[in-house]
């Protein structure tokens, strides 16, 4: 009985050493609190629930303490574990292009085709990326790390994950969480900047309704768009190619089922896997560092610069446009590629000052141009630094 008792106690002790209670550290508890906060934000405040619920729960999964030396093969960074297999889409960078396929299949580029000059607003908003790049360098990050962090300013989660997986894999968790957090906070971050940089008179500018766009133009757009942008920046091919491919599926009129699958089922599946694994990759040991704090600060700054540069560019553009063709600067913030949230903010703010001034369709132009612009910017950074 004595030997049997010792055997039982030893087994139970061993088991106790495997439990989360034994292996928990304060860092784990902090990360679990962060995960719960994300879930609370999503459910209670309705902040991007489709992203924050998977990410928040992923953070919980990734931060359940366990004995990493026990060879359980359960951790996301342990080769061959289930989580590690699912994480391959993030680490090898193939989830983001699939998301872009879905975005392309969901996005109506009509507003942009009707008024092609709005593409330049989407380009101007990319200043946020490079402003943050300069500050990141000043904080001591290496150029490749700075590029990966700065892409947060593009307000595009998949692009941020894609680029950071190539340039700074060790920072990817923090970058992805930061990018998605700020995308969720677009309604909080952007309006004060828009109000600060515009006069009341400018906010009341009514833009001419967009012209009707022929179906043939909508079909030509993804083909020409892909060829032109990828000829300039071939390194953006995975993102831009899939984006425009998805859009062709949508617009060509003969692949409705494929477009529907790409924009619904496929995007949902990849969003679930991407969100959950990105969340799980934020393990306390790698996430709670000084760099993460810098990344969040830089991401916030990048968002502000991007939104401001979009608004200011429209104001600058207006100097060269005739009176009847002036643009409302409230659509400038939509140059960041948080689709369609930032366009919705332009619309809401416009309606606040003039209840008959609907800016949504006008803002969708720079908004989808921002998606293209941020993918091009990511391609440039990849080409320069990889």
């Amino acid at each position, binding site marked *: 009985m004595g030997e049997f008792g010792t055997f039982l106690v030893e087994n139970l002790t061993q088991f106790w050493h495997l439990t989360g209670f034994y292996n928990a550290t304060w860092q784990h508890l902090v990360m679990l609190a962060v995960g719960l906060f994300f879930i609370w934000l999503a459910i209670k405040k309705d902040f991007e629930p489709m992203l924050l619920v998977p990410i928040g729960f992923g953070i919980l999964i990734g931060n359940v303490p366990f004995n990493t030396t026990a060879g359980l093969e359960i951790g996301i960074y342990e080769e061959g574990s289930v989580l590690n297999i699912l994480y391959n889409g993030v680490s090898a960078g193939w989830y983001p292009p699939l998301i872009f396929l879905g975005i392309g299949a969901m996005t109506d580029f009509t507003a942009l085709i009707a008024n092609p*000059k709005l593409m330049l607003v989407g380009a101007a908003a*990319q200043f946020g990326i*490079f*402003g943050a790049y300069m500050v990141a360098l000043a904080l001591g990050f290496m150029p490749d790390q700075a590029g990966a962090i700065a892409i947060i300013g593009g307000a595009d989660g998949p692009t941020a994950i894609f680029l950071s997986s190539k340039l700074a894999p060790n920072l990817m968790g923090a970058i992805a969480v930061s990018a998605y957090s700020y995308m969720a906070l677009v309604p909080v971050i952007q309006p004060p900047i828009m109000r600060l940089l515009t006069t009341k008179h400018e906010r009341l500018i009514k833009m001419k309704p967009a012209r009707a766009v022929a179906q043939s133009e909508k079909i030509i757009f993804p083909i020409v*768009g892909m060829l032109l942008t990828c000829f300039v920046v071939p390194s953006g091919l995975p993102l831009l190619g899939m984006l425009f491919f998805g859009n062709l599926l949508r617009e060509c009129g003969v692949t409705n089922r494929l477009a529907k699958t790409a924009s619904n089922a496929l995007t949902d599946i990849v969003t679930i896997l991407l969100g959950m694994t990105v969340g799980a990759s934020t393990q306390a040991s790698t996430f709670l560092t000084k760099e993460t704090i810098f990344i969040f600060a830089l991401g916030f700054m990048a968002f502000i610069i991007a939104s401001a540069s979009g608004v200011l560019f429209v104001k600058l553009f207006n100097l060269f446009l005739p009176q009847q063709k002036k643009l409302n600067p409230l659509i400038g913030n939509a140059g960041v590629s948080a689709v369609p949230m930032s366009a919705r903010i332009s619309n809401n703010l416009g309606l606040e000052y003039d209840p008959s001034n609907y800016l949504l369709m006008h803002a969708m132009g720079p908004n989808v141009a921002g998606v293209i*612009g941020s993918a091009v910017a990511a391609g440039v950074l990849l080409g*320069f*630094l990889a």
Partner: protein
Amino acid sequence: MYNNMRKKLLILAAILTTVSVGAFAQARKGLRINEVMVVNENNFVDDYGQRSAWIELFNSNFAPLEISSVFITNDPADPTKYPVPLGDVNTRIPKRQHIVFWADGKPSRGTFHTNFVLNPEQPNWIGVYDADGRTLIDSITVPPMPYNSTFARKVDGEGVSALDWEVRSGEEGSIITPSSNNVIKDTNKKVDNFARLDGNGFGMTLSAMGIVFTALLLLSTCFYIISRIGAARSQRKKMVAHGINPAEIARTDKPEGDSGEVIAAIAMALNEHLNAHDLESAILTIHKVRKPYSPWSSHIYTLRQMPHK
């Protein structure tokens, strides 16, 4: 029926040609002779503990490359001199990696021992031919070399002329690297250069924003032109349909002003003013419903059949 079949065959042929040409372009063409040692006195040793001449091949693709069935030769008149044997797992070269063949004239020692030797007295021509025995993938003429020296590409897999090669003695700064990179990179040069020459990021910002603006400006200009052409064509079609001379109308009519709202307002105003219509009890909307057929969506194929009793 015949035309339809012919069209399908043409499309299939075009796809096959594209795929096969693309596959060839990306695969075997990427195989490179990378470094050659002709006289091996005290250098690399083979798995039999012997020293002999060696030829290093490099897979310059960013994908694995299977080289069984390609030919290695030192005689342009005999391109199929040494066929790399089939069925050896080691003939699959990982992306951007190397493989060494021993030119010892002893093919019985295994896959990586060729059936020819190199001549230390005179220049050695070495060629690699594709599986068809006719397509030359890569070749180099190695000049007579000192003992224990190699003739190597300055940068792995890069360059097309002999100027891109150099003699390496094995001394410091002239390293011999069998089965390894000719250029040893301990850091990312691009990143180092940006860190050194563009410490504040101004250069990156300027050039990257320039590229982003150029790309989107190109797209914007392109679509401006396409929309102009489209508008002009549809206007012309409309006029031709109404039996109007397009050249005459083009002088007076401005199609860009015809937004839906303007047309609707004019129509309503005319209706009010002229009272042009009788009492209308309903609105007729004609909506074309298209149901493109696909076997994937066909009920005949996708529904379960009722079981026979």
